[in-house]
Structure formats: C-alpha cells, structure tokens
C-alpha cells in the first residue's frame, strides 16, 4: 500500500512538472484518488482545485481552462469609455460570484478621479439590485492619481475583509507597465484574493495579468413572463466577452447573460431578442450578413501587442 502511494506521489509530481512546462496551472491537478496529498503553492497555502472562479458558462469556462484564477490579477477591457457600463457590470458580476462563495466579505472598488468623472460613480442602489451586493459590503476609493489607485490596491490586497478588489482606470497610462501589474499580480497571488483591473478605452499591451477579457455590450434578454418573453422589454443584462489572452490561448467570443435573480451567469439562449432578417421560405440559406469584412482584427492586434 505504502509503495503504491509513493508511486502515485511520484506520478503526481511528474504530472505537475509536465503541467508547469506546458504552462498550465500545476496546482489544478487533482491528486489521485485515495491519496491525501495536498498541492502547495508558494506561500504555504493549500489549494485543492478551489482556486478557480468558474463563471458557470460551460463553453466560457472551458476556454479559460476551468475559470479565472482566484489569487490573480485579471484584466477586463472595454474598447470605449461609453462601454463602461458593460465592462464594470461584468467585473462586478465576477466579484459577486467571488463574494457569494466567501460569506461576509466586502468589495473594494478603486477608481481614478478621471474614470469616475467620465463614466460615473458606482451607484449602490443599482449594485444591490443587480448583483446582490448590499451597501454595507461596498467600499469605494476615489484616487486622485493612478499612483494612488495602485497604492490603495496594493495595500488592500492584504485585507482579510475583502473578497475582491476592482481597480478601474482609463486608457493606457505609462505607469501601468509590466512592473506595476506584476506587483499587483504577486500581491493578489500571495493573498489569494482576486484583483480585477478594469480598463476603459484601452488597447491591449503586455501586462502580468494571466487573463485579459474584452467586454462589449450586448442586447439584453427579454423579460420572461408567464406568457413567454415580453416583446420590447429589457430583461437580464448581457455581455459579449472575448478572450484576449489566457493560459490556454483559446480565443473566442461568448455571449453571456447575468441573471439578476439567481446571481449567476448563464448562456444566452439561442433565440435572438429581435429578428435581424426574415427566414427564407425553405428554412435554408440564411441571408449573409450585410457589409463586407474589411479586416480580421484579432491576428494583427495580437502581433502588435507583442505576443
């Protein structure tokens, strides 16, 4: 029995090595059943598969190899500042999931004065309604400068009272370089606390965050009534999320919906809220989308980001 266990442990260690070489999350490897092995991460904390924040949308989680890392910096981008509503709510939805799992924790939302002026201050009444985060659990930090925002974020990662930290800023400031994000990422990793870096109107640039998601708004679902979907109504919010960078390097665009009542993500049902074109008589040969494809934007942008 003992010999068997030792062999299993060796095997497990080898698989971890392979995972590290392949760039996967080594600590995610399940120890073989029957052994009580614990995979240790640096800092001496024990993690047993619970360090991933799964969104609950199967295809999306699969593309992220199980979900977002919990003790890590995750970047969430919006292409334009006017999409700040969508990117902020997608982040808050993730934070709400993180908070739901850890009871009695609060959320710190740090923003630079610039972004709060441009995109508006978080509104607690709406946050409670949409994400189930009560006002007592919320804390906002209005930092005059980016350096202050980063300082608050770094200091806040040590707070045990926080479930997640959101830093919101605008554009691509020079100070937020590889070093600054690396510091944040390390702090987040040491504390095992999610830090979300929300960047409005920013383009992709090399950072230490293992995951970058680009969020854009998507038409909301229809309200569901007893007699079916209510035409012309605005129901659960939806977001169109594309993976800009991840460990698995699997791209893709996902349409996810946030269910405000169950406080969970769900996949968008296939029925589109409004019919874009009428179906052809025989049900085959959908009309092609209007307009011409000018360029494939994903590939050149990646090259520009230096990856």
């Amino acid at each position, binding site marked *: 029995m003992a010999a068997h266990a030792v062999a299993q442990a060796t095997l497990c260690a080898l698989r971890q090595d392979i995972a590290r070489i392949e760039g996967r999350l080594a600590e995610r490897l399940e120890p073989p059943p029957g052994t009580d092995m614990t995979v240790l991460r640096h800092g001496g904390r024990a993690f047993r598969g619970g360090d991933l924040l799964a969104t609950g949308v199967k295809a999306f989680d699969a593309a992220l190899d199980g979900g977002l890392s919990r003790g890590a910096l995750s970047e969430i981008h919006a292409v334009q500042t006017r999409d700040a*509503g969508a990117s902020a*709510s997608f982040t808050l939805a993730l934070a709400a999931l993180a908070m739901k799992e850890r009871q009695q924790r609060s959320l710190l939302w740090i923003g630079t004065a610039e972004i709060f002026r441009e995109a*508006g201050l978080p509104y607690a009444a709406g946050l409670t309604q949409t994400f189930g985060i009560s006002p007592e659990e919320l804390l906002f930090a209005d930092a*005059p400068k980016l350096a202050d925002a980063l300082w608050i974020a770094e200091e806040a990662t040590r707070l045990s009272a926080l479930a997640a930290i959101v830093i919101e800023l605008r554009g691509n400031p020079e100070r937020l370089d590889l070093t600054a994000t690396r510091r944040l990422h390390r702090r987040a990793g040491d504390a095992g606390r999610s830090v979300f870096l929300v960047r409005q109107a920013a383009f992709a640039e090399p950072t230490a965050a293992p995951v970058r998601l680009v969020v854009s708004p*998507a038409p909301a679902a229809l309200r569901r009534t007893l007699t079916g979907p209510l035409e012309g109504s*605005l129901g659960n919010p939806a977001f169109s999320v594309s993976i800009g960078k991840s460990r698995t390097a699997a791209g893709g665009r996902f349409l996810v919906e946030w269910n405000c009542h169950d406080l969970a993500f769900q996949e968008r049902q296939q029925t589109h809220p409004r019919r874009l074109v009428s179906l052809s008589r025989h049900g085959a040969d959908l009309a092609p989308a209007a307009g011409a494809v000018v360029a494939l934007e994903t590939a050149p942008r990646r090259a520009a980001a230096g990856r």
Partner: protein
Amino acid sequence: MRLKRGLGLADARARHPDIDVVEADAEADRRLLVALADWCDRYTPLVAIEGEDGLFLDITGCAHLFGGEAAMVADLVRRLAEQGFDVRPGLASTPGMAWAAARFSLPAVECGEEEEALAPLPLSALRLEPAMRSGLESVGLRVVGSIIHAPRAPLARRFGKVLILRLDQALGVVEEAISPRLPVAFLSAERHFAEPLLRLEDIEQTVLMLAATLKADLERRGEGVRRLQLALFRVDGAVNRIAVGTSRPMREPGPIGRLFHERLTALGERIDAGYGFDLVRLGVLAATPFEDDQADLVASAPDGEEDMAFFTDRVRARLGEGALLRPVMVESHVPEQAVRNVPAALEPKQVVAAGGGALPAPDTEIRHAERPIRLFQRPEPVEVTAEVPEGPPAHFRWRRAAYRVVRAEGPERIAPEWWLDDGETRTRDYFRVEDMEGRRFWLYRQGLYGEAEAPRWFMQGMFA
C-alpha cells in the same frame, strides 16, 4: 536719523534725500507675528497674540524645562536676536504686569511686587484707551501710583469700570486668562535636537520614539488617541504641523508611526526641511477611552492580514478624508440623493447627522424599478428626438455621439420632493433605453409638456 512717527514724507525726504519708502503692510506684519507665535510654541503651548506687536506666553509649569525663568527668557531673547528680531521681554505673574514690564523694560517682577513695580510707571502701562488716559491725565493723575490707592467708586463712576479692571488685572487681584491661539494638546512629547533633523526617515524614527513615550501616559489614563498632531520646528523659525486622525483609539507606537509615514510620504516635497528641524513634538489633540482586548490564544488573523479600520486610517492619512467612501442609503426618491457616498471613517452617529443611514435595514430592500449601476456625477444634457412628445426617445445625441434607441422601458415618473425643496425642481420621467449595440442608459425628461419652460433631456446613468 531723527525721524519720528507721524513725520510727513516730504519732511523726511528733505532731511534724507536718499531715503527708501516702503508702504506699511499690516497683513505681512500680522503674518510675521503669527509665525513668531508658532515658533514660540516651543516654549509653551499657551501662546496668544496681543495687539499688533505683542505675544503672551503662559510659561506656568514650563520654565523648569529650560533651567528656570531667567534662563528661559535669556534663551528666547538670544534665539530671536539670532533671527534678527529686537525683543523686549517682560516676565511677571500676571499678563497685565508682564505687558507693562515688556513695554517699560522692567526686570522680572516677582509675585507680590506688582504694586511696587507699577507705581512709578505712567498710566499707559495699564493698557488703557488713549481717551481714558488723557481724561485721567487732565485731572492730574499721571502715574499708576496715584490711582492705586485712590477711592475706587468715584474713579469707576467717572472713567468706567475698565480702568479698575485693568488695574486689578495688573495687580493680580482679578484673574486674567490669555486665549491661546492653537488648541492645546493635553498630552505631548517632544524632543530637542542639537543637530537638526533633515531626513524624512529620521523624523519617522523620532515619531516612533515619541509615540512610545506617550504610550505610558495613555495607558495610565486608560485612553487611546483619536487625533494626533506632529509639530516640526524648523531651525529658522518656520513650524510645520501635521495632523492625522484614527478611526478607533490607538496607542501602539508602531501603527502611529505608520500613519505618520503615510502622511509624510503624501506631503513629500511640500515639507521643506530647509536647514533641518531642531524640535519635534507629538501632541494628542483628542483621545477616547481605550478598551483593552483580551488576546486570543489562537491567533485570529494570520500574519500579513490587517484590519479594515487601520487600512482606512492609512488611506485617510495619505489621501485625505474623501478618498475612501462607503455608500449610505438615504430616504429619498430622487436617485442622486437616495445614495450618499460618505467618508468611510465617519462614525454612524456622524453619518446620521449628515442625513444618511436613517433607514432601517429592511427598508433598503429595493422595491422600485431597476436602477443603474453607475450614476454620472451630474446629469448630462442630451439632445433627444422622440416619436411622440411624451414617449420614449427614438434618437439621442450624448457627448457628441449619436445613438439610436432600439428598445425602451418607461416612463418611471419621479416627482420632486415638494415637502423638502423650494418648488423649483421639476418632475422627471425616466426611461431605460438600449441602443443599437446593446448599451443601456438611463435618460430622463425634466419637466412636462405644456409647462412654461420646455422639457429638457438628461443622461443620468448606465445600466449593467
């Protein structure tokens, strides 16, 4: 030079053609006097400004720190002379007597010798109005000695009670309190340096040392500090005062040192060390009873985890009161007033005073229509085209970009709170709209059609 006060400028120029004329600047004189009062803080916390050119220093209980009263006065005169001031000190046991002693260059007046010292002085030694003085002089009363023993009732009747009051104050019969310029720290620790401090690290080290000194006193009183002030006395006379607040009583030197570290880092360049600081004082401005916690045998928080209150204090020390906010629900229908973001360090009592937090918890349950997740700091005007006047917008232009509304929900009518405001506010009709790309906004039309003023449209927030 033989120039006198009241001499005409032409006369002065006639005598000394190369004279420089500088306009009197009362404001600058005042600033200098205030700076000087700040500097005198090193001798006693009780410093008051007297008139245009005087300072009162209440040195009760402070003199022994400087080797006695005479040594203290000598030290003060020497240091001020080094800074280029001509000082006339007066030392006595009453403010009135000290005033006279300074003006008439008397040596230190011991307690009980006031009458003797005052008697030969002219009446101007009593801080009297010029009119009253000339009135007294017109009846032949020229020196203080002539009124000390004069019958009081006729004097008071003729010249007013102020005369008697001033006399009694100078003699010490009536207690006179000086009003100190700055709040007096009820507990303070200070350290003098022969070699001035220049580096921020040294100052921080000194703060730790002073805080350790204060700790014993705080423990004796059973209190913890809530507000601290660090006074840095520069060699050349300038004084920097840096205050930090804490959200709960504190007495450990470590955390106090870290709070000052944040504050000093934030101030950074704004603290001009010049030639260095030769006196550093840490004063307790406010303290509340400190409740000792029973230490847990099992460590409650793992290493590296620190608690929220201290984090709040540090952010506050570095970035100011308004940097860390927490939302508080307010009983109001107007969206921008329904949630107030108050400084996180505020106590519940202060929050209620600010008009928030009055709601019991169950009432915060949102029962009305959807609210946005972000609200603009002030509603932004938009140009709207609607299909029907009262209907939802069909197109709108916001921040120089055009949007086409695909779906809209509303209106939700929010009438002004007539029981609170002055009737100037107008009714609002709110619409949730979604544009072509799926952005969801909160727009409202302010005012109704048919009113004298045409309705206007505003953008107030963004939905999830």
